[in-house]
């Protein structure tokens, strides 16, 4: 008995929701960024599951591109965080409120 597509889609939705919760709730920029990565991985899992159960290759190939974009995103994002830390000496989002007023 193989688990169904529904189980995989539900699991990826749960992972995505946890990541989204983390993005909204955490105040450390790095933790927010890690939650973003979790959301990307959840979407990846859904793509692979749909691809497997439909018998097509396209979803799997799309995951390739997602992995590449995620790697580029992480590199640039972490560089921005390091530049921000150099300038402001903090990575807490509630202390980075230059645009607030």
């Amino acid at each position, binding site marked *: 008995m193989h688990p169904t597509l529904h189980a*995989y889609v539900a699991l990826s939705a749960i992972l995505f929701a946890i990541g989204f919760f*983390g993005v*909204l709730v955490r105040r450390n920029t790095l933790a927010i960024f890690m939650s973003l990565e979790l959301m990307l991985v959840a979407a990846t899992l859904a793509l692979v599951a749909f691809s497997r*159960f439909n018998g097509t290759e396209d979803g799997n190939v799309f995951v390739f591109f997602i992995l590449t974009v995620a790697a580029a995103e992480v590199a640039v994002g*972490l560089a921005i965080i390091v530049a921000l830390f150099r300038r402001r000496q903090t*990575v807490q989002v509630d202390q980075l409120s230059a645009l607030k007023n």
Partner: protein
Amino acid sequence: MADFMFLLLAVFTVGCALAMVCLRNSVNAAMCLLLCLAGVAGLMVQLDAFLLAFLLILIYAGAVMALFLFIIMLLDLRVGAPISRKNIGLVSGFFSGALLIAGVASLIVHDRVALPAQSLPAPVGASLKGYADSLFTVYMLPIQVIGFLLLISMLGVIVLSQRTPHSE
């Protein structure tokens, strides 16, 4: 057997994801994300996408998480802030997460997730030849664009990490 493995990996992955979101210590959170990624890679093995599972371990768990840990050490953030004290953040987080899950659950309950065949089709993602075939024929242009994207992001990181005169 496959069902049991799925259940085990699913519980493991969700538990690690929850721990990642809730732990204060950034290093522990990164380690939990690493375990969570390993669980997702196991799920991909269950789905017969062996190459993708390998790439997930190699790129995410290897390169990206090492970069994260390096930055955490560099900025010395071992004790992070607790999760948001403001109620509005917690409430909105819970609500939006619950809404997302409820949306997908309603799709599943009303059977809107298309299932073309009841029997499982042959695993197309299991062979490397299939990937090579589609990557170098149908998806040739996206491959080139992705290559440029990587080049541009590399240049962007170099520019961002230069010391500008007013950053001191």
